[in-house]
């Protein structure tokens, strides 16, 4: 399941890409799983179909999903994604931390936030509920 905020300053496409990346990283959707159609996701989230379409394209460019005509968009195997070395990872973290400090957040708050996100990202996860899982 993914969640976005319509009143967030972060553009909807970026939120959607981040949410979908998280779901893939947490194995909520496994390699080979088909994602919802653009129309379904747009209708459920109450956003424009172009927004979802653009998010799927961004994910396809980074190799996380692939769109096949007539079969929809599916999650690719995670090994297909370009490896992220420590230097690149540090740069991204540093960028996010710099944004936080510029926004006036203190280190304690950020440390708690990062810990929370780490726990959430590496928590025991299952794939999205199938019809058998539903009560």
């Amino acid at each position, binding site marked *: *399941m993914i969640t976005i905020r319509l009143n967030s300053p972060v553009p909807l496409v970026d939120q959607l890409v981040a949410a979908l990346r998280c779901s893939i990283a947490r194995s909520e959707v496994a390699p080979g799983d088909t994602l919802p159609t653009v129309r379904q996701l747009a209708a459920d989230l109450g956003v424009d179909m172009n927004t979802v379409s653009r998010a799927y394209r961004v994910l396809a460019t980074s190799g996380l999903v692939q769109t096949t005509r007539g079969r929809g968009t599916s999650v690719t195997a995670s090994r297909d994604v370009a490896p992220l070395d420590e230097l690149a990872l540090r740069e991204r973290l540093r960028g996010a931390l710099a944004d936080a400090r510029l926004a006036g957040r203190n280190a304690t708050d950020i440390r708690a936030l990062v810990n929370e996100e780490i726990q959430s990202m590496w928590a025991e996860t299952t794939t999205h509920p199938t019809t058998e899982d539903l009560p």
Partner: protein
Amino acid sequence: MTWFDRLFPTLMLLMPLAIALGSKRHERLSREDAGPLMRRLVWATLGLVALTIGVQFLLEATHESRTGLRAAWPVVMAVIGFQFLWFKRAVPALGARDPGWRPPQESPVRSASLAPRHLDGALPPWIWVTSWMTFALMVAATAWAISEGAPLLIALGLAFFPGFAFGARSSAFEPATLDPGGSLELQASYRELRLAKARGFLMLGLVGSAVFAVTAVFVVVKPEYAVHWGAYGGATVGLLGGLFGLMGSLMRARANRLLAETLDEQSAPHA
């Protein structure tokens, strides 16, 4: 049929009030203004029932045969009166008592399931194939009956199925507003609604078209049965449609109520 002309519109007009009175007041999420809305519903129902029955007796006294205005009046009141009482009076009153009858709450936080609905089996291919093959048989039977002298107009009834098939397909994919926590109960409730609506639409389309196809065949084979079959078949389709609509409304209300309750629980400050 005089008893039917008096009873049918009365029952239809009383139904919104019966549903409203039968609904439970939600413990946490009901609104204070339910009382005046319920009173407006009661007065409007009593007024319309009195008007319908009064005019009906007047028409029976002044028109000997059951034709024209005398025949149309009960049907018109059952349809228009019901629509007014249900949508303008009962739904607001129900909405005040129970969040299930209100439109889903608009929230800036939007959640969606990543399970593709076209794979959840609401309308698997075998259902489509069987339905369209059955419809093709009806078309063939109607075409034969028309070639043997049945009125051409009867073929219009076959439009039932394609129209309802479109509704079935739309229902199988209709949006599901989820809570940020992704309640499984809510997801199950939406799925039940989708299944019931999609299959109900398809079934109603098939039954509707079948009534016309069989009527067309009766016109040729057993003309003396055709009128009765048409009348009873039409009434059955109407009844099934009404029950289907009511069931859909109740299931939709359940999903809306679950969503409202879940959002309310999630927004409540933690102790």
